[in-house]
């Protein structure tokens, strides 16, 4: 055949154009029509789940005046979440007890009221609006959810402990060793942790998901209030409007979501 090379190039060029052009045509609508009305499987929230735009906590410290209430609140949390009981520097804690000067380091008053200084305060993760731990986490194992809870995804934690260095409240604990031998009675409804991960309070997000209040709130006989800080009619906002409250280390700008009625 004459000019065979030229012919070949022509055909090749034409078919290339045809191919490229067909991509630009709207794709056939047949595909869309066969899609089912509602796709399965679906992932969604539970019907009874509690929702909020900004979960927060208001603690009436005046009522935290005896060892029993601290014990009740701490053991309710630690027992359910399989928090190991290690009495050393390798201690693991989600909620704990501290004195005035340790709690409110920003209060520089020379002669604070005796009742306030002698009181003890329950401390826990502050679920900050600007959480330092989240900014430094290299794997996004800790992150701020849209409802304000600073959550932990233990599966992603590589144990680098940056978050512990970042958190100004000491709310995070590292598992220096296998925690299982230090959990007296393992709650089989909740996982433990393993050596080499960091853990902390999660505002009981697993319970909020099934319409239950956090365990410390339930164990506190009404002295800890929990609710939506963004809703002016919520219980927590009412308490804040009626009482003088402090937050821990407000000057650092992390914006804690836990308030203490003094």
């Amino acid at each position, binding site marked *: 055949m004459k000019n065979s090379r030229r012919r070949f190039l022509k055909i090749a060029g034409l078919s290339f154009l045809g191919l490229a052009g067909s991509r630009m045509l709207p794709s056939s609508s047949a595909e869309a029509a066969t899609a089912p009305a509602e796709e*399965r*499987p*679906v*992932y*969604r*929230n*539970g*019907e009874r*789940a509690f929702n909020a735009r900004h979960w927060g906590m208001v603690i009436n410290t005046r009522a935290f005046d005896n060892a029993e209430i601290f014990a009740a609140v701490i053991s309710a949390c630690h027992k359910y979440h*399989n928090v190991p009981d290690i009495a050393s520097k390798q201690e693991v804690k989600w909620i704990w007890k501290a004195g005035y000067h340790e709690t409110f380091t920003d209060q520089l008053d020379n002669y604070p009221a005796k009742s306030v200084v002698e009181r003890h305060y329950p401390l826990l993760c502050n679920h900050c609006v600007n959480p330092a731990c989240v900014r430094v986490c290299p794997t996004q194992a800790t*992150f701020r*959810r849209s*409802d304000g809870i600073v*959550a*932990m*995804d*233990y*599966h992603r934690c590589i144990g680098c402990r940056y978050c512990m260095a970042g958190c100004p409240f000491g709310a995070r604990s590292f598992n220096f060793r296998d925690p299982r031998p230090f959990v007296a009675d*393992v*709650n*089989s*409804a*909740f*996982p*433990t*942790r*393993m050596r080499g991960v960091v853990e902390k309070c999660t505002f009981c*997000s*697993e319970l909020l*998901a*099934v319409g239950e209040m956090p365990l410390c709130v339930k164990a506190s006989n009404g002295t800890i209030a929990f609710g939506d800080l963004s809703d002016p009619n919520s219980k927590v906002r009412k308490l804040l409007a009626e009482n003088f409250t402090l937050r821990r280390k407000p000057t650092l700008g992390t914006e804690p979501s836990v308030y203490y009625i003094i």
Partner: protein
Amino acid sequence: MYNAKYIAPGILIFLALFTLPFWYNFGAPKYERPALALPVTKTDCIEPRDVMAATHMQLLDTWRDMALRQGKRVYVSSGDKEWTISLQNTCMTCHVNKAEFCDKCHNSNSVSPYCWDCHVEPRGNK
């Protein structure tokens, strides 16, 4: 052949080593699916049985991301049934005999999920 004295034995040794896995398993018993202890009181899994056998690892991965990262803790299966997303409180309440179910199949397939370092095994095992 040039240097055949060295090359021929070299090729033979190479072939012997290369095919070693075939010789090693020659005549070994054929792989058989282990007999699993299925739940006694229940008849259906979350998804059809063959789907579960083939994709339960992806399902569990998606479950944990959905539950912990998206906060979605309910799964509506392809059979339109609702399940609470939980390894311990959903899967393992039916598959109480972990040793004779999950472990048996995993061992015969040389898989060892690290989930149980943290997740609590059902008491049915002990």
